Structures are given as C-alpha cells and as structure tokens.
C-alpha cells in the first residue's frame, strides 16, 4: 500500500482535472452575451469534456492502484468503475436535457453544474478520508439543490429545491456529527486507519455505533434509504425531468459507492472474499433491516402513484433497497452484484426516463394516464411502448433483461451470505413490483388514448437513444459476459 504525495498523485487525477477545466470553461460562456445565444455550444463542450474524461480514465486505469493525495482518496478498480459510470450517466443526461422541452431555455451554468456533479461522483466513490467524504458529498448535494430549483418560476421546482436543501443540510449536519463521534473514538479521519484502530481496540463503544448510525443518515439520504428517503419523491417530482433522471442514477450510485467503501474498508475485515464485520458492530443485520424496509416501502407506495416522476421515484427507492442488500451480504459477490445492478439500473432507469421525457414532451402532462394507448399511436408510439415495456420488465427483474441478471447476482450474493430471510422477502418484493410496472404496460396497450394523434417523437437521435437503451436492456440480459467481466475486475477495493 503506497501513499502518494501531491505531485505523484496528479497523474491519477488527470480525468477529474479535465472535468474541472470543462466546468470552468463552460461558466465562461455566460459572460459574452452572444455566446450564450448559441444553445448548443455549452452542451457540446460538456459532452467533449465528459468524453475526454472517460478516455483519460481508461488511460489512468492502467496505473497501479494507489492511495493518492496523502491518503485523501483511493485510486483502485472500484474508483475506475465509478468514473466510467459517472461519465456515462452524464452523457445520457446531457442528451436527455437537450431533448426535453422543460429545460429548453437553460443557460450555460446548467451544463456546468451537471459537469460539477459528475466530478463529485468519482470523488465521493474514491474518498478515504472523512473530510473528503463530507466535501464530495456536499459538492454533489449543493450543486444538485441548484439544479433541482433551476426552473425558478414554477412552484413545484422551487418547492422541491427548498425541501431538498433543508433536508440535505440537516442530514449532512447529522452526518458530520456522527463522523465526529467516530473521530472522537478512533482519533483518526482516515478510513483505513479507523479499521486498524478498531482491530487493535476491540472494546465495545456506544459512540461508535451511534456515530455510524448518524453517518448512515448522511449516506442514506443520498441513496434514499428508509427512513431517510422522504425527500426523494417530492424532489424527484418537482425537479426538471432530466435532472430527476440524473439524480436517480448518478448521485445515488455515488452514495452507494461511499456507503459500500466505508463499510467494507472501515468496519469489516477481509477474510478471503468474505468481509467479516468487526466485533460488536452488527452492520450486516442493520443493513439488512434497512434494505428490507427500503424496498418494501418503495414498492408498496409506488403502487399508489399517478405522477410518472413520482412513480419512478418510488421505484428508485425500491431499487435502492435491492442494492442495499449488498451492504448486508458483505462478500465479494455482493460487491460484484451491486456493481452489476448499478449498470443495469443505469440502462433501464435512464431508458424509462427517456420514454417518460418523450411522453411529457408529447402530452405536456406528467400524469401516468398520458401513457394510455401509447402502443396504438402510430409507429413511433409503438416503438416507445415496446421500449417502455422492456424497461418495465427489466425493472421488475424478469428475464430476458439485464434487470433480471442484476437481481440474480444480488440475490445469490445474499444467499451466499446465508441471509435467507432477506432473499425470500426480496423476491416477494419483486413480485409486488410486478403489479405497478405491469400497470404501465397495461395502460400502453389496453387502454384508450385521450388523443389518437400519432405520438410525437421526432428526429433521429432521440428515438435511437431509446432504441439503443432498450436493445442494451435485452442484449445484456442475454449476453452478460462482458458486463460480468467488468464487474469482476471492478469489485476490488484497495484497503
């Protein structure tokens, strides 16, 4: 384990540096009046920057894994994966933002803020220091508050932003209080040193558990874990739809990354692929309870929703519950499983949001009823409906879609960890979720549309994105070896 100094670390930081540069350059576009008139300039620069970021992260991937910046962050395969993930999420979001009518009139800072959040995702995933955790989390959060409230003159957007800020500020306050308790017991801010301290001082400490709980409030709020989930439906509904899509995938994945890294690095001991929780902190049971509560609540309440964004918000809470099972299972398979699940979730959730944006563009309504009769509204309508059906099937977790494979890996990790009750209840939860996902399918094919005019999904690029995501859903549902390989190499934490 090598801890690099600042100069040596800079090479590892190359991809993120590009993002910072992009961030600053885009901000400059707002200065000259005539520049900001060209609507496409800023998103193009953002796209170029993100692509460059992805390319460079493939380059830095070849470096040996190391702990960089005096132990602040860790550059390992896990971090590399989240660079890839953040880049892909950002690219899709930029595309969706261009296509959505809601954010048609944005200025350059919108794209800059997107890039800024994208920067936060790998930073959070790589954090090894309690200070870095807080800083990266806040970087994501604060910039998200602004994006959520970006539609300044709509009531829902501003209301969502206010709730988000108030909830986020309090949750992060509670989290630092918890982190400070952990610091008080262990005397260090470094996650690896925390583990070493806990191994050599195995006496039970109440402050440690409570500090952990409070820390989980901060992480849990980012991943919308019950009972810290309640902001999510309101914020997801009020935010501009592309931002909702982004928040439900990117920052959420970052939250999972740090949750898993923190638990696996600081609170467990690696014993040949099985991470044994350090004595007296029964993190496994705790996370299993959280996971069960999260998925059950998400699924049950999603059944009741009539707004498409709110519906997808509850669906995303339910999926957070499934992914939380990895934090309960505590083995390498679980890490693999959750990484696989994140990829599948990226594909299918972004796909669902893409169709939702198309429907909102077409009807101007966010109600689920806007989906009625979609399958019978011309060729484009049929295409959107078929794609949406695939995404719904995948979100339910049925074969032959990528969602099934993701669930399969996760559940087998849970069984490997011998937490059978969680696996059984998780499967039952998937059955419940079938009800509400099938509702959309039923709407699209078996109900009459309000207007019979052909579905407006113009252009070439937007339909091809939807088709591409739908094809990926099925393709990776059948041939998942490549993804499986990626998850296998990514499920490695340097500690």
């Amino acid at each position, binding site marked *: 384990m090598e801890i690099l100094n600042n100069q040596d670390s800079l090479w590892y930081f190359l991809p993120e540096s590009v993002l910072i540069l992009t961030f600053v350059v885009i901000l400059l576009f707002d200065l000259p009046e005539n520049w900001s008139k060209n609507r496409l300039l800023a998103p193009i620069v953002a796209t170029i920057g993100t692509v460059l970021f992805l390319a460079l992260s493939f380059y830095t991937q070849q470096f040996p894994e190391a702990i960089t910046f005096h132990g602040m962050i860790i550059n390992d395969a896990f971090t590399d994966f989240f660079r890839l993930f953040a880049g892909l999420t950002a690219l899709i979001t930029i595309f969706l933002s261009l296509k959505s009518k809601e954010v048609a009139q944005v200025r350059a800072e919108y794209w800059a803020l997107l890039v800024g959040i994208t920067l936060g995702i790998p930073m959070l995933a790589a954090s090894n220091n309690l200070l870095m955790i807080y800083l990266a989390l806040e970087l994501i959060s604060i910039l998200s508050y602004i994006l959520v409230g970006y539609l300044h003159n709509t009531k829902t957007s*501003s209301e969502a*932003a206010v709730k988000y800020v108030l909830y986020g500020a*309090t949750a992060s306050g509670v989290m630092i209080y918890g982190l400070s308790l952990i610091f008080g017991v262990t005397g260090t801010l470094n996650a690896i040193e925390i583990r070493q301290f806990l191994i050599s001082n195995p006496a039970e400490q109440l402050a440690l558990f409570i500090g952990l709980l409070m820390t989980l409030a901060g992480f849990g709020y980012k991943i919308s874990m019950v009972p810290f989930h309640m902001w999510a439906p309101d914020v997801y509904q009020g935010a501009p739809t592309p931002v909702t899509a982004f928040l439900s995938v990117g920052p959420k994945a970052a939250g999972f990354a740090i949750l898993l890294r923190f638990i696996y690095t600081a609170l467990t001991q690696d014993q040949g692929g099985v991470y044994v929780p350090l004595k007296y902190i029964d993190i496994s049971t705790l996370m299993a309870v959280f996971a069960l509560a999260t998925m059950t609540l998400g699924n049950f309440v999603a059944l009741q929703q009539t707004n498409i964004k709110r519906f997808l918000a509850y669906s995303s809470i339910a999926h957070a519950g499934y992914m939380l099972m990895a934090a309960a299972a505590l083995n390498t398979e679980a890490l693999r499983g959750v990484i696989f699940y994140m990829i599948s979730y990226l594909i299918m959730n972004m796909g669902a949001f893409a169709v939702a944006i198309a429907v909102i563009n077409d009807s101007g309504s966010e109600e689920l009823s806007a989906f009625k009769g979609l399958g019978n509204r011309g060729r484009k309508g049929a295409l959107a409906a078929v794609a949406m059906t695939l995404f719904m099937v995948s979100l339910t977790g049925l074969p032959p879609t990528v969602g099934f494979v993701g669930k399969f890996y996760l559940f087998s990790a849970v069984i490997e960890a011998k937490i059978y009750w969680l696996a059984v209840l998780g499967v039952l939860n998937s059955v419940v979720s079938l009800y509400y996902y099938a509702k959309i399918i039923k709407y699209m094919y078996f109900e009459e549309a309000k207007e019979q005019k052909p579905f407006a999904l113009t252009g070439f690029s937007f339909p091809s994105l939807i088709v591409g995501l739908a094809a990926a859903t099925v393709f990776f549902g059948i041939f998942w070896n490549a993804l499986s390989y990626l998850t296998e190499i990514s499920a490695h934490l340097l500690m």
Partner: protein
Amino acid sequence: MIQMQHFLMMSAVIFVLGIYTVVTRKNVLGILLGTELVLNAAALNIVIFGFYGNQTIESSIYALFVIVLAAAEAAVALAVGLTLYQNFKTIDTTETRELKG
C-alpha cells in the same frame, strides 16, 4: 474543572436544540437557523476531539471546511428560499405543499 465531557455536553445541547428547531419550525428561514445550529455543533465536536484527542491540525481544518460549506449551503438555501417566496408569496412550509403523497 472543565472536562472534555462538559464541552461535549454543550455541543450535544446545541445539536439537539438545532434538531428541535428543524422539526418544529413552520418558516423556511426558521428551519435554516436550526440546520446552522446542527452544523455548528458538529464543528465544535470535531474541535473538541482534536484538542483532547489526536492533537493535530486536522481537526481545525475539518472544522474550517464545515464552516465554509455551511456558508455555501446557507447561501444556496436562501437563494432557493427566495424563489419559493416569489412563487408562493410566502415561505411558510405548511402553505407551500404542492408535492406530497
């Protein structure tokens, strides 16, 4: 003699008062005051542990960052609160409830 625990207790009192403010206030600005208290309690906690505990500079730096980020957060919160006010002509959270269920 003042001990570490006394400091910690004071910090806990500030923390709990902040939480109480957050969960009871109707006014957005009122809630924000509570979050500031929570954040200050956390910063205080860190400085206490730094002073009695590992005695390095890192606790001070951590507290600094907490203060700076709290300021950033407050700025955003106030800006967002203003947009809320422009849309609803009030910042009473019980009257700005379009999103629920």
